[in-house]
């Protein structure tokens, strides 16, 4: 697959990222298939979130990153990004509907006048994720799973072609994780490319099409069943305590 291939949603070549003199990612080369559900897997501090942030152009890097066939700045409205829970101010005075509307604004324009349309699309997206009844509630009053559903609604309202989620299942019970994975599968069936930073290796094997193993660089990537093998996971997790998960 070449970088300009429409079957490629994200093409990364020789990516390197350094924070404060420390190299977090080096020589990472990767193709993420369009329309597939891809898990990004690796130990803590491996550079998984950094990989997503580099794709979004949120930090300086060297190398090449092409998203949906071009630079990220040319297609931001078509890419939905859900950061880690800790990066969000859950006490901020904002309602669930306003959160979902952000997705519509990202697509329709931050200064446009189509407020009625944004509101309608946000409410439709909330209905799709089962939060219609909670639209007027402050986001901080919702449970962790409901908050992730609201973010899912934001991505739906954005009608993104590519959705990047950074550890969306952290601190969420198994039932809610199952429901959220079903929502993501639904997105994938609509043709959306879904990329998830995820820790549960069993779920990756069962529910994801592709996997990317990361530890300072891309160790392996490809179909989940080919990549999530004991040998690759041992190379990714090494002898660290995380390797216990690899054999789970």
């Amino acid at each position, binding site marked *: 697959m070449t970088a300009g291939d429409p079957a490629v949603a994200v093409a990364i070549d020789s990516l390197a990222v350094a924070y404060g003199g420390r190299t977090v990612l080096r020589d990472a080369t990767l193709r993420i298939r369009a329309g597939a559900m891809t898990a990004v897997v690796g130990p803590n501090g491996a550079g998984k979130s950094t990989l997503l942030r580099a794709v979004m152009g*949120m930090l300086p890097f060297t190398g090449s990153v092409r998203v949906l066939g071009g630079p990220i700045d040319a297609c931001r409205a078509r890419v939905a990004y859900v950061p880690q829970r800790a990066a969000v101010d859950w006490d*901020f*005075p904002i*309602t669930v509907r306003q959160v979902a509307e952000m997705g519509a604004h990202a697509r329709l324009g*931050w*200064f446009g006048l189509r407020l009625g349309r944004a509101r309608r699309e946000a409410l439709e997206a909330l209905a799709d994720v089962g939060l219609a009844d909670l639209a007027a509630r402050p986001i901080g009053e919702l449970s962790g799973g409901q908050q992730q559903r609201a973010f899912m609604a934001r991505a739906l309202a954005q009608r993104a072609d590519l959705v990047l989620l950074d550890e969306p299942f952290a601190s969420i019970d198994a039932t809610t994780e199952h429901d959220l994975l079903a929502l993501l599968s639904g997105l994938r069936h609509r043709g959306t490319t879904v990329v998830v930073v995820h820790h549960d290796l069993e779920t990756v094997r069962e529910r994801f099409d592709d996997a990317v193993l990361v530890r300072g660089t891309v160790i392996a990537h490809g179909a989940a069943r080919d990549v999530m093998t004991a040998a690759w996971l041992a190379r990714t997790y090494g002898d660290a305590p995380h390797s216990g998960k690899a054999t789970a």
Partner: protein
Amino acid sequence: MSRAHAAIDALRAWTPEVDGWIIAIGALAAVACAVPGTLLVARRQSMAADGIAHAVLPGIAGAFLLSGTRDLAWMAGGAAVAAVAMSAGSAFLERRLRVERDAALGIAYTALFALGLALVVRAADGVDIDPSCVLFGAIEFAPLDRVTAGGRAVPRAALVIAATAGANVAVAALAWRPILASSFDRGFARAAGARPAACDAIVGAMATATCVACFESLGSVIVVAMLVVPACAARLACARLVPMAALAAAFGCGATVLGHVAACVAAPVAGLDASGVRELSTAGCVAAALGACFAGAAGARAVMSRNRPVDGAHAASLPCAP
């Protein structure tokens, strides 16, 4: 004459041309402060309000020393330079020297405020500027400084603060969606092209302009109370920003009326009239009234949450949640 009569006499002595304008100026300041104040409190940047209000002093004093006038363009220019210097200084301390965020702000603004006080004392050797007015304002004298607008003599402070309030509301309305997104979820906002750094600058510019506009009436210290306290009180009762800003403005207006009444009646009630102390500082009394508003809002919230049925995750919901 009883003290009650003295208090009533003090209020009877009110005139629309003086006391009416004092309250109008305070109410306009409450509206002007409600917009940046609400945003700063909701974004957990109350300390920045404190910092900006203090840091603009050297800019204002320096501009006065340079120009020899209290011309608004000079004052605003000086304040903007000082506010940018504070932001740059605290950002340097935070990022390069790893000083904690609030501490970095504290170091930057107290250094600038001290420089400002030194400049004010230097300027006080000249004319027209008084250190205590700089700190606590001189809203009592604001109605005396008039300009002609629409064929009518209007206090300059009222015009300046009204224009600032209007500008704040207009700017906030225009940049509302990106500000909301970048305040709640900076990562998403940045990824979605909402430019959170520009939103930070807009909120900081609104707070700086408001501090400059309110500086002569409320002083560089009391304006902090008007920025932060009504917004904090409103946050106790509101779960969305627009009602929060409206309630903050209402709290500020109410505190202005209460504060000016208290300033007029407290001295005669306390028996200080005969000693020549006719009134307390209105700005000081307004700040005290704001404190009382906050205490009232906190008390009302406590009572309402005690009477609320416990409902799992919803037990912590706010009384005015929409």
